[in-house]
């Protein structure tokens, strides 16, 4: 793939300025890409770049102290901007290789299409399709049909921040007003429906914290209050109440910070739509403070600032 070659070339050039480059390599089967940490330029030959490279690699940045190169898509770049807003990374220590993206693949959606069969081979054709071969035959799927939900309303296909751009920038062709359409539709349901929905979804949660640990903005990690006794917000019981509370903690702590990368949902082994809560809050942040996460490094996350007169917050009457 052309882009892959360009990325490889660029990576070769930025060594030894950086000590590590984070990119992708083939995972355990043809359908999975996995993060790839390169520390010498020769390793670059195993790098891959295709629509399977869905993971947001930027999650690793705050924990890496040395100078690092990283491959980012448009959506991933919002995380970097959010990190900059919150002062969580040193921009000078990151070399960003930006790659404009036309959409990635949701492995979960592909698996659904192929009946969860082990894959024998995966190829991409020139018409935006992924061809998945299994023991039971071959399936040709349009990438647009098996992309994560976030891609369907993507506003930022081209990285918003980068040091090297691979290929030409792409403009979004998705209507801006559709970004929170799903949220509005869900919100239109009755309270009982919504409550029942979440109870059914959260009941499956096994508290593995994959959503939290994969979340680039969950900066607490080892100190997460879901596991501590000091403070002791939730118990070790596996009740719905505790699971619900954990997801509310996750959502509340991401208020005005969630970059909508969808990692939490992508990694959930129980298929819980955990990103939805955060997206709802983002929709409100947009409405209340005209704030969008991860687009402008000079913005202030809305929960850490205030206006003496809030234009959009009206006093509630009883």
């Amino acid at each position, binding site marked *: 793939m052309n882009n892959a070659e360009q990325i490889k070339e660029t990576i070769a050039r930025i060594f030894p300025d950086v000590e590590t480059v984070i990119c992708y390599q083939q995972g355990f089967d043809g359908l999975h890409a996995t993060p790839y940490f390169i520390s010498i330029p020769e390793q670059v030959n195993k790098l891959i770049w295709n629509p399977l490279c869905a993971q947001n690699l930027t999650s690793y940045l705050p924990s890496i102290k040395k100078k690092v190169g990283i491959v980012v898509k448009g959506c991933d770049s919002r995380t970097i901007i959010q990190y900059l807003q919150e002062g969580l990374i040193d921009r000078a220590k990151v070399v960003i290789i930006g790659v404009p993206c036309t959409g990635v693949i949701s492995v979960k959606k592909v698996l659904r299409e192929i009946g969860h069969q082990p894959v024998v081979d995966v190829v991409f054709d020139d018409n935006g399709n992924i061809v998945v071969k299994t023991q039971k035959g071959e399936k040709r799927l349009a990438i647009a049909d098996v992309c994560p939900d976030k891609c369907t309303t993507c506003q930022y296909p081209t990285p918003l921040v980068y040091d090297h751009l691979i290929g030409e920038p792409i403009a979004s062709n998705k209507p801006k007003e559709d970004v929170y359409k799903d949220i509005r539709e869900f919100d239109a349901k009755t309270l009982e429906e919504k409550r029942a929905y979440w109870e059914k979804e959260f009941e499956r949660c096994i508290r593995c914290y994959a959503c939290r640990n994969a979340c680039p903005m969950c900066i607490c990690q080892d100190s997460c209050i879901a596991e501590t006794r*000091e*403070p002791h917000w939730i118990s070790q019981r596996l009740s719905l109440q505790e699971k619900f509370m954990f997801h509310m903690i996750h959502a509340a702590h991401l208020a005005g910070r969630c970059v909508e990368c969808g990692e939490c949902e992508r990694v959930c082994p129980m298929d819980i739509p955990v990103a939805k809560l955060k997206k709802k809050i983002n929709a409100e942040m947009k409405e209340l403070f005209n704030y969008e996460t991860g687009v402008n490094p000079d913005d202030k996350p809305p929960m850490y600032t205030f206006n003496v007169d809030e234009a959009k917050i009206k006093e509630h009457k009883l």
Partner: protein
Amino acid sequence: MRVGVFICHCGNNIAGTVDVARVAAEMRKLPGVVYATNYMYTCSEPGQEEIKQAIKKENLDRIVVAACSPRMHENTFRKTIEKAGLNRYFLEMANIREHISWIGEDKELNTAKAIDAVKMAVAKVMKNKPLYSSSFKVNKRVMVIGGGVAGMQAALDCADGGLDVVLVEKSPSIGGMMARLDKTFPTIDCSICILGPKMVDVAQHEKIKLHAYSEIDEIKGYVGNYQVKVRKKATYVDWTKCTGCGACMEKCPTRNAYDNFNFGVAPTRAINIPFPQAIPKKAKIDPAFCRQFTKGKCGVCAKICPTGAINYEMQDEIVTEDVGAIIVATGYGLFDLDKFPEYGAGRYPDVITGIQYERILNASGPTSGHILRPSDQTEPKTIVFVSCAGSRDKSLGVPYCSNFCCMYIAKQAILTKDHVPDSQSYVFYMDIRSPGKGYDEFTRRAQEDYGVKYIRGRVSRIYPKGKKMVVRGADTLLGTQVEVEADLVVLATAVVSAPGAAGMAEKLHISYDTFGFYVESHPKLRPVETNTSGVFLAGACQGPKDIPASVGQGSAAASKVQALFSKDMLESDPAIAQVNTNACVGCLKCVRTCPFQAIKEEELRNGKKVAKVIETVCAGCGVCTSTCPCGAIQLQHFTDNQLLAEVNAICQG
């Protein structure tokens, strides 16, 4: 853990509507509670003694007192348990009086609610940790904001007590409202004659530093260590050179400048000294009227000034004063006349306010003490005083009594008779409020000796008829309509909070009520303290007050400051934020939200970056705790676990 619970009857205040014995019995069932009792007056000496005895006898290590509001007696009981050897933070109070017995009618429900409240307190106290104050140095300088009579008294008392005082006055001269009054009730003393010497004392006191024509820009810090930014407004006259000779004022070609001191009764010059006894007696230019500023040319004063003090280029100057305490004596304002269209105030020159009439009565006023009405400078023979012009009127947003109008109306009526013996004064009143020493006698004198006619009723309308003003109102005693054709009408306009009072409160972090008056710590027992430690109140900024009350408060506030400064070191409130460096991930979101810049970044020996609380600066609000996603920064005494214990006690039972 051995918790002791003490349920107070508060006489019948609590026991009347709460079954206190049952509350105590329920508490005895709780694990951890080894002692629970009820007592008639827990705050009384024997009541406190009982707590101390129980701590010793039952070996109690945590105490819950269920009684009145902790805002009332938390400190009392903290001291009690401290005397018995417990850390003061091992006390929790359950407010079963203000929040329960006094507001609920059903004894069963009240009792159930009280049981919950005490249970919550027990749950919390079991999570409490001992906290220890540290001490810090006090800067024994005091700032007094406002140079009226209350502020002057406070400044003088502090200075006489040996404290360095910074007095900040907004207007060009100290003296405040009292300097404008003619005589004072009930003695008919000359106001400026008794105030003048005090003003001079202030000016000459070596311990008092005066910033006149200055305002407060910003206040930072905490008790013992405030940093106040004072804006010295540009006067365009170099006061180090100005001798107050008045030559500039005499020669100033602008003769229509608004006279703030005289409340616009007559115009003044664009450069002026407000009144003869002004302290400091210095000139100042009003750029809104000065031709040099409005037209760009004139310069007369600059030419005439013998010391070359005029400086048209002058800018505001900011000085920072470090002080340990602040006395707020910012006084009051007066109700806006325009809000009485039915009284024609503002439209008819012969309808004036009480304070304007003071200036007319005053020998140093624009009429040199001759009573001349503004419209045609003739001597009025029939004068009508309207009391409660705005006061006690909910519809105007002033439901309260303005405190001293009844008295000054009587005084003005008496003075009117003295000045114009053939005059007749009428007073329309709602009630005569004259509760002070010699006050009632005074209002009677006005009626009995000076023939002032008091009409009980409200004025509905005032309108002109030829050269007269017709005052129409009701006489509720006679049950008739009355009309008086007056030459001059004096409105006793309502006392309101000083302009900008709310903004000042916000700078000081003190509370103000709906009307902009500052809220004292306790309406009975802490009348000059505020809820912000180191900030005290004096005078009418707290509510309408006459001169003796204002002076009394000035002295009271000064004595509070003296008491505060009697120690070299103060104890800090240990209920401040604390960082668990193991849990802190160094995201520093707390640094962003702390309203006091009390958190900074610190690097540990292992290179880990964490938040650090500057103990003396932290005010204990807890914004950081609710900001911190990992619960690493906890406001002591209000930690997540302590509040969760209370939530759980309610929700899980």
